[in-house]
């Protein structure tokens, strides 16, 4: 397993960008939220998700997840792997409060999601959660900087710009601040997305196939950056992936099959 330092060395463009930046990043030490490593930050209780079966209009239901139970501690890095259609992304969506389960519950950062309405869950996400997506999900009409500023602007933070610039510098995009997503490569777009995920100082970052749209070399750079940021910010990282290499680098690896949790093993770390 690579150490955080060797991971930086492995990503050439990230390396170039990050040299010296760890010292200048004002958020590294000052704005860091307190994390208690033994605290359970996500607790999944008997989670079940069913959807209407499209091929059975008479009202049959299709099980996507069945009775999933798990706990994730603060600052852990957890990979969720499984074949396509095994329910990985559904589980991630439910844990992040993006969707509601048919049965069971999720406790996220101490709050039971079933007790919250949609706006309550949104507010919790705003405070505690960051996202990285397979298709980057950058807003095409906004520049790299504006995309990263958006979460802070929604929280009406006055320092949105400085913090976003700082994060973009941190991910090696100091010279791409005013580029639109279409003017950036896939790797660069994902770095913008990572900066955006971390900019609001979340305690948890969910990543859905963060390297799914990238080539091998770029994927490695992105993985390194993700872990590096995770380690710097002491966030909890939950990654849904097909990428075994990425899964191995996580502290824990959960395997889903047909909507059921099959394995829960420690990673290579």
């Amino acid at each position, binding site marked *: 397993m690579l150490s955080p330092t060797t991971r930086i060395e492995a990503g050439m463009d990230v390396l170039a960008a990050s040299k010296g930046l760890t010292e200048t990043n004002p958020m590294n030490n000052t704005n860091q939220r307190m994390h208690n490593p033994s605290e359970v930050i996500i607790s999944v209780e008997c989670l079940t998700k069913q959807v209407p079966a499209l091929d059975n209009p008479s009202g049959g239901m299709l099980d996507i997840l069945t009775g999933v139970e798990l706990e994730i501690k603060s600052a852990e890095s957890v990979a969720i792997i499984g074949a396509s259609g095994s329910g990985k*992304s559904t589980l*991630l*969506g439910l844990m*992040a409060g*993006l*969707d509601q389960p048919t049965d069971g519950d999720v406790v996220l950062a101490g709050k039971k999601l079933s007790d919250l309405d*949609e*706006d309550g869950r*949104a*507010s*919790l*996400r*705003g*405070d505690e*959660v960051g*996202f990285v*997506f397979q*298709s980057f*999900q950058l*807003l*095409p*009409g*906004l*520049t790299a900087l*504006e995309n990263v500023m*958006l*979460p802070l*602007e*929604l*929280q*009406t933070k006055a320092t949105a710009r400085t913090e976003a610039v700082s994060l973009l510098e941190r991910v090696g995009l100091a010279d791409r601040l005013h580029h*639109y997503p*279409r003017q950036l490569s896939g790797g660069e777009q994902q770095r913008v997305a990572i900066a955006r995920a971390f900019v*609001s100082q979340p305690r948890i970052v969910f990543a*859905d196939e963060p390297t799914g749209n990238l080539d091998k070399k770029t994927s490695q750079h992105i993985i390194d950056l993700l872990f590096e940021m995770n380690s710097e910010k002491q966030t909890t990282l939950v990654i849904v992936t097909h990428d075994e290499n990425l899964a191995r680098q996580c502290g824990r690896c959960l395997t889903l099959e047909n909507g059921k949790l099959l394995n829960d093993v420690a990673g290579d770390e």
Partner: protein
Amino acid sequence: MIKHFLLAAKLLLRDWHSGELKILLIALLIAVASMTSVGMFTQRINLAMTDQAGQFLGADLVLRSPIEIDVSVIDYAKRLDLKNTKSIHFSSVIVANDEFQLTHVKAVDKNYPLLSHIKISKKQYGEERAVTDGPGKGEVWLAPRVFSILGIELGDSIELGESKLVVTAVLKHDPGQASSFMSIAPRLLMNRHDVEATGIIQPGSRVTYQVGFAGDLSKRKQFEKWLNPRLTTSQKLIGGTEGSQALNSAMVKAEQYLSLASMLSVMLSGIAIAMTANRYGQRHYDQSALMRCMGASQKTVIQIFSMQLILLGAVGSLAGCLIGYLTQEGLVVLLKEFLSPNLPAPGIYPLLTGFISGFVTLAGFSLPALLRLKSVPPLRVLRKDISPLPASALLVYGLAMGSMIGLMWWQSGQLKLTLLVVFGVLVSVVLLFVLSLLLIMICKKLLDYSMARSISGAWKTGLQQIVRHRKENQLQMLAFGLSLMILMIIFLLRTDLISRWQQQLPDMAPNHFVINIQSYEVEAVKTFFTQHGVQTEGVYPMVRGRVTEINGVSVLDAVPEKSKLDEALKRELNLTWGNKVQENNQLLAGQWWQPGDKAKPYISIEKGLAERLEVTLGDSLSFKIADRTITATITSLRSVQWDSFQPNFYIVFPDGVINTFPVSYISSFYIDKSQKKLLNDLIKKFPTLTVLEIDAIMEQVKSVMEQVTTAVEFVMLFVLLAGMMVLVASMQSSMDDRVQSAVIMRTLGAKKSFLRRSQFAEYSLLGFLSGLLAVSGTEIIAYLLYNRVFNLDFEIHTWLLIIGPLISIILILMISHLYTKKVVQQSPLKVLRYS
């Protein structure tokens, strides 16, 4: 809230930079600019015409009453700083040298006229000069022909009732003459103070009391508002263009057209806004989902998008108002020659209307699309296929229709026209929808045919595209067809309206009436005109008679309450006879008399009078003519073009019924200014004739027509722009998919030339089909509008069948070229990345 406002502003600005908002804003700009400029331009022309009409009336407003006007009315006008002038009108015989002459007496006070001037002369046929005061005490001014009839000269005295008054000037023209130019007796102008001494006005005398008012427009409006509910049924307030029927009729049509055009440009802009807002909304689903992911509540999301809407509305409406203002100012400068030199400044009202309308249009048409953004589930960030539930159809259409009807009604003040337009458009949409289904089916058959015969090529690909994306194409055809249809209707109406006006007032339209031609003079007068090369519009007999009974019942008992004070019942009507229907009359019901009907007691009645008296075919009317009564049956109803400047009659008899009654003849003719001297010769030769000079009012009507034609052309430009916006918006809404499939085809090896050809085929087909739809809709709506609103003759425009689809093809090819050229010209990779 304020911070969200700032964020909304920032996001809006960012969207602007990325080009997302341009079409939306341009559509809004066009809507507002069209509303404000049309509103201001029409208002200015209206004001100018009211001013001009004021010159003819001698006052901005005139109140007519059969009894003396209450002093409270004048007091209120004084309080509003409105100037006033009181006059008394009556008919009386004057006597001089043992000769008698009936005159129309107008007794005026020292303020007369409030506007314009009186033209007098010191010789019967001498040069005229303008004066701004009426005759002094003890003086009278007389129309030229009275001098010949009575054998008097200036300085002589005449007897009027018990008074003797000195004739001090020849009265050539006095304001207000235009409004009653059909009164036959020559005019006499005198001082109001002398009326009492004449002893003519006794209880029961037929007298009209008149007060003219002039002053600031807003004060006048306030005065009108105050006065209208206080008027008795026999009192009438005249203002604006009401003094002249021809002017009024032209103006009403012009205003209707301008309202219609403005409404349609608003409607088209609304459609463009709805389409772009829908696309804008769809393209922001991801943004909304992301914002929800990042913790924004539904309230925050809706606040942000609503604020964007408000900001966009404010910026668009303000800029639209400015553009509208500048456009109409520019137009006024450009068209200086055609417009009145004293065009009043535009008021603030159209600006305000435009500004508010901008918001209403934007909200009405884009709110449903934006409201959907609120309910985008955050899960969309993981699953792109999840979209918000569509807004309820009631909300979407209800809001759009509600705001549209409200706006159109508010803007035009014409509920009938508004409802007719809305109904017409709805019917067209349904009709076009059915037609488009049919056309797509035909395309499908053609495609099957070409498949069965293994025909290949660009046209087949084009057909395939049309059939494959039938839903999208059908919608596009509908949007395209509808906007083309609106453009065509506006164009057709404009052409037919203008040509109607030109027909109505050709260059040689009669501008003088001659009345009181005696039977024995008819031939001599005709010869006089022929000798001098003057063309007349025919000489018509005229017998004066009063309607006394309807179906044997006294007329006042027979007619409905509201018609008891009808002008046609209060005075003697001019009756005529003839064998043919007059050229500008149209037979609407019944039959015109046959040769065998000679001397039969039949009548043809004007439709409007028949309606007011509630009589129809088969009813009988009795007339008191001289000391006899004659009863006749209605055998036909006619429409009369009152604004034709030709002798027109309510009632026409067949030859041989009223010929034995005292008759005089009437004719109308054209002479230009340089031939005016001819009038003196005519009067000298036939001293009993009365010549009514209506050339001044004709000039005014012509100038109004010219100004209104300019306005009509100008409004059409805006409708055209708005229509283009819809075309662009509808094209844009499907362009993403089209570009995508074109790029994939290129990636798969399609040659540029093949793509060009297949795109050409697809868009030509789409254009052709939309054009066909538009032409069909146009003919139906035009038929309704021509018959129900504008009273124009409708004929099917066959040339449209070729021109319509052709224009549609050209337009669609042009717009699609803007969007698709990059697909063909650039590398597929570049396009993929940017699209």
